[in-house]
């Protein structure tokens, strides 16, 4: 399957040693290397004849590394990586090289932060490869973080927070996570709490920057129209001189206390929207159990054939049902979201949903499981037609420390049975695994 989707460069399939690198076992058509000078991991995939290269660097730091009072700092730091470095100041590039690059070339440039990682990507015509690498290498260590530079960007992040927080679904999800997790840092949203965002200082950010932004805590991906040796030589030249901090990155293993019974939370705001959300804890990605849960959620609320769509949307009790599950490395909370139709009771909808789920059996879900698997495979194939999707997917496998599973997903899906999915549903919807939330729209 991967041969049809991904281009295999004949040169790349040879085991020719490249100076300065250790070559690891390939992941399908994707080659993996480690830069010996500093431990930077590099993934390479050749996609010829597009004229385009996508470079993506992921740092293994995210919301789960944040202490109380500093929630959202990984995300704030992501914003600051677009600010000027010492090089930029010396060369009078006022807006910083990354912004300057995007503004001068029209390339795609962005970043995102999640629970386990922060990732930065460029997608551009191949002639800009050297400059893109230079910028990425430079900002790994050299962004100037001062309170003066921080202040306006803090305003932008607060604006972003307000944008999300105004959405009833987001506001309820924030409460759901903090209710589900008493101790684990997955309990706070990646953007953090507004109060914490307001309290950031450059000093706090500097600490995170120095601790986590280093070659041996990163993976660089190059996907596109460039020969392997050219790409890796350039990476060695740009990144090879960057040293790692001597500090050890502390990964706090947090064991979430056992949940005893259903947890509840409510958000009440003036609104015409009403929502019932049901949260279920699930295993980390990309374990088989994670995929079982993913398929279970599709069976329950993934489109017009799903159980809850027929139960609630087709009958007019709900305007929408939706699901979300994140590819996090540790146990997290997946959500089923029901937007109520007018004059529906939160309690009645909750009861109806849980009762229906409790009565499911293999016969009722068998055909839905088959279809969910088929759609996931098609979706995977479509994703691999674009380099930005490829790096986004690789990022999640890398941050779960499971790159070797990347090309095994279709095989894994094929092994999942209806019995597996039913078992997951039974376990997931036990009271000790449930968090229930209501968004109640009140009159102003």
């Amino acid at each position, binding site marked *: 399957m991967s041969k049809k989707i991904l281009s295999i460069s004949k040169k790349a399939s040879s085991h020719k040693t490249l100076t300065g690198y250790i070559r690891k076992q390939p992941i399908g058509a994707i080659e993996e290397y480690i830069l010996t000078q500093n431990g930077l991991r590099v993934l390479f995939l050749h996609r010829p004849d597009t004229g385009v290269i996508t470079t993506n660097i992921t740092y293994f730091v995210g919301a789960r590394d944040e202490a109380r009072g500093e929630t959202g700092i990984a995300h704030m730091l992501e914003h600051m990586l677009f600010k000027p470095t010492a090089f930029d100041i010396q060369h009078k590039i006022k807006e910083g090289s990354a912004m300057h690059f995007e503004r001068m070339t029209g390339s795609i440039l962005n970043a995102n932060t999640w629970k386990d990682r922060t990732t930065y990507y460029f997608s551009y015509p191949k002639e800009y490869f050297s400059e893109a690498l230079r910028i990425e290498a430079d900002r790994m260590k050299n962004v100037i973080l001062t309170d003066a530079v921080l202040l306006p960007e803090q305003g932008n992040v607060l604006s972003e927070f307000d944008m999300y927080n105004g959405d009833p679904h987001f506001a309820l999800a924030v409460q759901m996570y903090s209710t589900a997790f008493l101790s684990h840092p997955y309990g706070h949203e990646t953007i953090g709490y507004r109060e914490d965002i307001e309290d950031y200082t450059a000093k706090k950010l500097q600490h995170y920057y120095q601790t986590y932004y280093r070659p041996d805590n990163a993976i660089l991906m190059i996907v596109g129209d460039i020969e392997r040796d050219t790409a890796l030589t350039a990476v060695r030249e740009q990144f090879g001189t960057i040293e790692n901090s001597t500090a050890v990155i502390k990964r706090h293993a947090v064991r979430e206390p056992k949940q005893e019974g259903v947890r509840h939370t409510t958000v009440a705001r003036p609104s015409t929207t009403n929502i019932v959300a049901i949260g279920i804890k699930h295993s980390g990605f990309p374990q088989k159990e994670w995929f079982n849960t993913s398929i279970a959620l599709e069976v329950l609320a993934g489109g017009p054939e799903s159980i809850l769509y027929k139960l609630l949307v087709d009958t007019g009790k709900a305007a929408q049902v939706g699901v979300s599950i994140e590819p996090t490395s540790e146990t997290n909370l997946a959500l089923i979201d029901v937007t109520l139709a007018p004059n529906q009771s939160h309690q009645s909808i909750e009861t109806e949903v849980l009762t229906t789920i409790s009565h499911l059996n293999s016969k009722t879900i068998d055909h839905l499981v088959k279809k969910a698997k088929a759609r*996931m495979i098609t979706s995977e194939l479509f994703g691999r037609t674009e380099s930005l999707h490829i790096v986004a997917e690789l990022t999640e496998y890398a941050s779960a420390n499971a790159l070797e599973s990347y090309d095994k997903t279709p095989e894994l899906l094929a092994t999942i049975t209806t019995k597996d999915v039913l078992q997951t549903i039974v376990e997931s919807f036990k009271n000790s695994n449930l968090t229930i939330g209501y968004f109640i729209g009140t009159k102003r």
Partner: protein
Amino acid sequence: MEQNITRNDHYSLATQSNANSAVVLAYITVDTHRENSITDQALQHLYPDALLAGAGKFSREAFLNAVNLLGADIAVGITDGRLTLTLQATSAAFPKLLPLVQIMLTTPTFSATELERITLNVRNDLHIKQEQSATIAREQLRNSFYKASDRRYTASDKEINAALETIDTTALHTFHTYVLSAPWSCSIAADESAITQFKKMITRSKNTIENSATVKAHEQKTAAQAVHLKQIPSKANIDFSIGIPLPITIHHPDYVPVTFALGVLGIPGFAGRLMSTVRHKEGLTYSIYAYAETFSGHEHGYARIMTFFTPEKTIQGLTATFREIKKFYEKGISQSEFETFQTIFQTRQTLLQDSLLKQLGDLHAFNQNGFSIEEMKHFKQQLGTITRLQVNAAIKTYFNPSCFTISGAGPIHNIEKEIREFASSVT
């Protein structure tokens, strides 16, 4: 990878041939715009779901089951009167998907029971739309530009709810006959075998009888009130659509200079002037972009700036936005800006090569607007051959800040007076 567009009296077919492709993506678009009556608009809400709700011997459940077992997807939607079917499947599944599509198109059931269900769903959708402030701001803006018979005009939720009552299965069948008779724009990215099969399916499904329904072209209003506001107290931000109608089609010589100019002002990303100033320098919003919308081969379009501000920052935000529009209008763009944006637009074209979805979307847009492949290439080349003088002339012709309309939706109550005063001072 080769692109091709062929046309006859009944349909056009754009193809992008990818040998050994693992997936197939295809579009069929039909312009269903007639008079944009409230009944038409209500029908457009109902029809997409109704088309997927059973055909031939298939009940809705059986039909969806058949499609989903293939791992495929058929999406149906209507935007601005244009119906689009999107087909996605693996190359292996696509030949099995096509007969289902053909049955759906040639013998849809449109049962009364399903119509009842769909009507209830549409009512619920209209209910949750009440707080979609960005959508409401955009609709208000467009309603201020266009008369009720124009495809861009949206009737009120109350009017559409009332019209839903009047629609029966006969109306759906009549609408469907119109869909089969109107010209189709079809596009596909696949291997040659899939392309051949797709073409056969189109010729088997398409009704070759000419339709005779009245079609109303764009009908712009005379400019009137320059500010439209709607109070939505539950929102944290006020969503704005700030725009101006532009009396040109895509074939007008000013179209490319206009879209170039709008790119300089607010291209999505970080390069536009509005993002550089209103967001980055002044920290007044998270995003602010400018778009050229709804232009076609035979209809005019409009320019729209989309953004949001907190109530506390609204007047500052609007002031900054109009300051930039004014500067843009009075001084135009500099030579270095012009050269930079030529590079940016060239890059955007290059980046299409990396995405199957974007490539076919781009090809389909040209297909719908009547272009041949040569005309498409020539059109794209214009971005490299237009001059700064042409762009600045277009800015002077079309972007007078005093002619812009401000539309906002959100918690406007406490600052409505200030917004109206501000609007009076600039428009």
